[in-house]
């Protein structure tokens, strides 16, 4: 993995962001000090010395040249941006049946609703963008557009039937400069309006006002999104119905997407406003907890219920699934209620160890096929045993114990629900073929995050544990995984995993790949978290011990929260890597986002060999995702930094 490049990119993003923030803070801290007039600013920052002047000129020229080359490339008559425009569906959902798009919209709706609520409830939203910054942006972008109009070479002339006219040297015949400028009317409008808005903001507002008036980042972004969505209603975004092998003919992007996207925007905005309202109520704290918990549940619900359509065998549900789930919820709950009784002592230990022994026996027996038991019962039993072993940490008064038992029942209900859903036959019989494009990128990235974080934490704790058995096992796992190329693991999981699974258990290729990602990423996360664990001072352990906290309590309340906080930057880095590394799925034959751009589109008869356009688009989407995560982690860090050192 190109970790160096990634490191560089992250570093740059951080630099930009921190500069932004510093500016905002400085502006707020000294509103009376006037900022430099533009010419002065240029002099101080770009032409302060001979060296500085030379550097400015050299890099300025290089920048202009690069910009011109890029634009000439992008607007050349050889470019076929239709390949991207027409293939939007292929890029994002590949062959997912369009009759089922409703599910994707619902999924997206759930995510946006949660995002809106979280943003509204959040206490970590900064003060936003100053008008000075917005004005600078407008002028910069307006200027860039106008410069682009002037820099791009005139278009090639075409004959009435659309052929490019060539001269004697087979070079395209180009329009005159004047016609070219006149042809770019729309672009002029965009550039001039942007620049004018920026200039107006600058001139009309006083210097102080400019720097101390802020537009919230969320409202600003919602505004920009509103504009983008509105274009679907009045701008012709092209027609993807023309031809192509996998595209449904006849409808334009705006026809099929304008209504859903508008609804999506409304959901996001509505949820944000609701969140803001809720944040001012007394129950804001518990509402935050509910929303955060929903974030954890959302992926499961969306993956298994909305993306797939299980055909449920109700007879089986009534005869087996439901009784089993209830058995674990109630029976397990009763056992745990007993074990959390204060002073249950030796009896509790015996029950816990006994259950654990039985659970292990279940698994060992399963591998020899001697003792058949439904897989989910086996999993539940093991979980029950593990929780039972730790139960004495949660001993307390009746209401506390009841809450603990309820949490257990909730987890069981969810687990059984999910496993039943996964095992149920689906109308989408071969999801590997149907889930492709960006959908698969998101699917695997989220799946990996959800499973690798807890596993990574456990491995890190194991490796730093004082108990040799945990230490040795974790170390072996981590070092083995880190010593093997990821591709090998991916191959192994997609091809051979089923052979190693016990009878009656099967796993789809995509899920297997997800598992491979999660197990691989966990080893790296574990090392990051271990770094964090080592940063926790010895005094913290001593203080916890001196207060009589148990090892589990010490780890959960004192050590881990501090260790994770320190590990946020590397953890987010790892997450970003995972997000980008999903493109390796192409190797095991899954058609992800990148592969659509790299081989599906260039294979279509109309767009034979058209590759760069799609790749550039894919890069852009990856970048947006990675940059977003990086920004988020900075906010998180600063938010959690409260009261440290």
């Amino acid at each position, binding site marked *: 993995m190109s970790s160096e490049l990634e490191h560089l990119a992250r570093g740059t993003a951080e630099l930009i962001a921190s500069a932004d923030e510093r500016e905002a803070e400085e502006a707020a801290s000294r509103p009376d000090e006037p900022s430099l007039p533009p010419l002065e600013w240029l002099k101080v920052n770009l032409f302060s010395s001979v060296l500085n002047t030379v550097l400015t000129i050299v890099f300025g020229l290089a920048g202009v040249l690069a910009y011109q080359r890029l634009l000439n490339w992008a607007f050349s008559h050889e470019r076929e941006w239709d390949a991207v425009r027409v293939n939007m569906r292929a890029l994002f959902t590949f062959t997912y049946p369009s009759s089922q798009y409703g599910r994707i919209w619902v999924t997206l709706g759930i995510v946006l609703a949660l995002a809106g609520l979280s943003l509204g409830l959040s206490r970590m939203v900064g003060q936003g963008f100053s008008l000075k910054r917005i004005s600078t942006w407008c002028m910069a972008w307006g200027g860039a557009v106008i410069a682009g109009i002037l820099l791009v070479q005139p278009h090639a002339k075409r004959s009435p039937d659309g052929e490019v006219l060539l001269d004697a040297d087979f070079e395209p015949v180009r329009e005159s400069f004047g016609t070219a400028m006149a042809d770019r009317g729309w672009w002029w409008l965009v550039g001039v309006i942007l620049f004018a808005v920026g200039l107006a903001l600058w001139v009309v507002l006083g210097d102080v006002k400019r720097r101390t008036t802020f537009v919230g980042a969320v409202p600003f972004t919602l505004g920009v999104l509103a504009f983008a969505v509105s274009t679907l209603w009045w701008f012709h975004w092209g027609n993807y119905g023309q031809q192509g092998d996998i595209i449904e003919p006849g409808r334009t992007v705006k026809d099929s997407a304008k209504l859903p996207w508008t609804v999506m925007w409304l959901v996001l905005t509505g949820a944000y406003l609701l969140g803001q309202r809720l944040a001012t109520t007394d129950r804001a704290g518990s509402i935050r907890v509910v929303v955060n918990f929903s974030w954890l549940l959302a992926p499961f619900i969306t993956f298994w219920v909305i993306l797939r359509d299980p055909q449920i065998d109700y007879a089986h549900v009534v005869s087996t699934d439901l009784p089993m789930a209830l058995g674990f919820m109630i029976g397990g709950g009763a056992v745990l209620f007993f074990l959390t009784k204060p002073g249950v002592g030796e009896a509790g230990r015996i029950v816990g160890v006994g259950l654990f022994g039985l659970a292990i026996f279940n698994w060992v027996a399963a591998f020899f096929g001697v003792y058949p038991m439904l897989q989910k019962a086996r999993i539940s039993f093991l979980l029950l045993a593990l929780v039972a072993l730790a139960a004495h940490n949660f001993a307390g008064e009746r209401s506390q114990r009841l809450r603990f038992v309820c949490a257990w029942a909730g987890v069981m209900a969810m687990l059984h629900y999910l496993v039943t859903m996964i095992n149920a036959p689906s109308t989408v019989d071969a999801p590997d073929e149907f889930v492709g494009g960006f959908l698969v990128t998101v699917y695997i990235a989220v799946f990996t995050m959800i499973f690798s974080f807890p596993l990574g934490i456990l491995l890190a704790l194991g490796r730093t544990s004082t108990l040799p058995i945990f230490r040795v096992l974790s170390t072996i796992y981590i070092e083995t995984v880190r010593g093997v190329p990821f591709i090998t693991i991916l191959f192994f999981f997609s091809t051979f995993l089923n052979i190693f699974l016990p009878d009656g258990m099967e796993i789809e290729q995509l899920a297997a790949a997800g598992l491979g990602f999660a197990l691989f990423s966990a080893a790296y996360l574990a090392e990051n978290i271990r770094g964090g664990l080592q940063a926790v001072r010895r005094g913290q352990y001593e203080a916890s011990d001196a207060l*009589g*906290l148990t090892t589990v309590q010490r780890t959960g309340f*004192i050590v881990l929260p501090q260790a994770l906080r320190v590990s946020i930057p590397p953890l987010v880095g790892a997450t970003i890597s995972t997000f980008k590394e999903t493109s390796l799925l192409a190797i095991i034959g899954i058609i992800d986002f990148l592969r659509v751009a790299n081989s599906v589109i260039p294979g279509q008869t109309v767009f034979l060999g058209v590759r760069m356009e799609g790749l550039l688009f894919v890069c852009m989407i990856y970048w947006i995702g990675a940059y977003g995560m990086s920004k988020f982690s900075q906010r998180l860090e600063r938010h959690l930094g409260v009261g*440290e050192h």
Partner: protein
Amino acid sequence: MSFSDATAAVSDELAARDDIIICDGVDKWYGDFQALNQVSANIKEQEVVVVLGPSGSGKSTWIRCINRLEQHQSGRIVVDGVELTNDTRNIEKIRSEVGMVFQQFNLFPHLSVVDNISLAPIWVRKRPRAEAERQARELLERVGIPEQAEKFPGQLSGGQQQRVAIARALAMEPRIMLFDEPTSALDPEMIKEVLDVMKELALGGMTMMVVTHEMGFAREVADRIIFMESGEIVEAGTPEHFFTNPQEDRTKLFLSQIL
């Protein structure tokens, strides 16, 4: 009266009380280095013992053995009737009866002051959260900083942090408090506020073992002073006796250096 027998050196009124800490021939090695050498001393209920000694003499090691942050290798330590052995249940029980205050405060930086104080009562003593938080605020009142309840440790001065640390230990309602140089990391103007809280505690009848270099505190508050050097108890006695009429040459040398 032999002064190397530390237990003998207490007033008659104290002698009548029960022993709450019994140390009998405690040895502690770090590898080849012997940090504690046959340390024997019994501490009475409600007694305030100040431990003095040059740097590296084993003062910290000793009091850390008493709540088993360090393990002694031979000899016996009995705290509140429970002997310290490898049995984890004994250790957790003892630790919840013995509060400890560290030189470096060791507050939990990610928790607010109230959460720092109420965490252990909630999870170790199994108190309802509301009650534990109420108690935390009362304790903050007692150590003189009720207005700091919602802040984080990083936002407090050193003296305030150490008072929170004392409140945190007191929240477990311990029968014994151990202090390991509680004022050594503080600026001079903050030392007094912490010492005042400790005096208050001593007057309230808490059993205390205090390692400190504050001679004023030792003279004024201690029932007994124990002087250590090279891992051994050299001399013990009432403050009056200890400061005015030390018997051992090593004690005299130490006192001449610090007074």
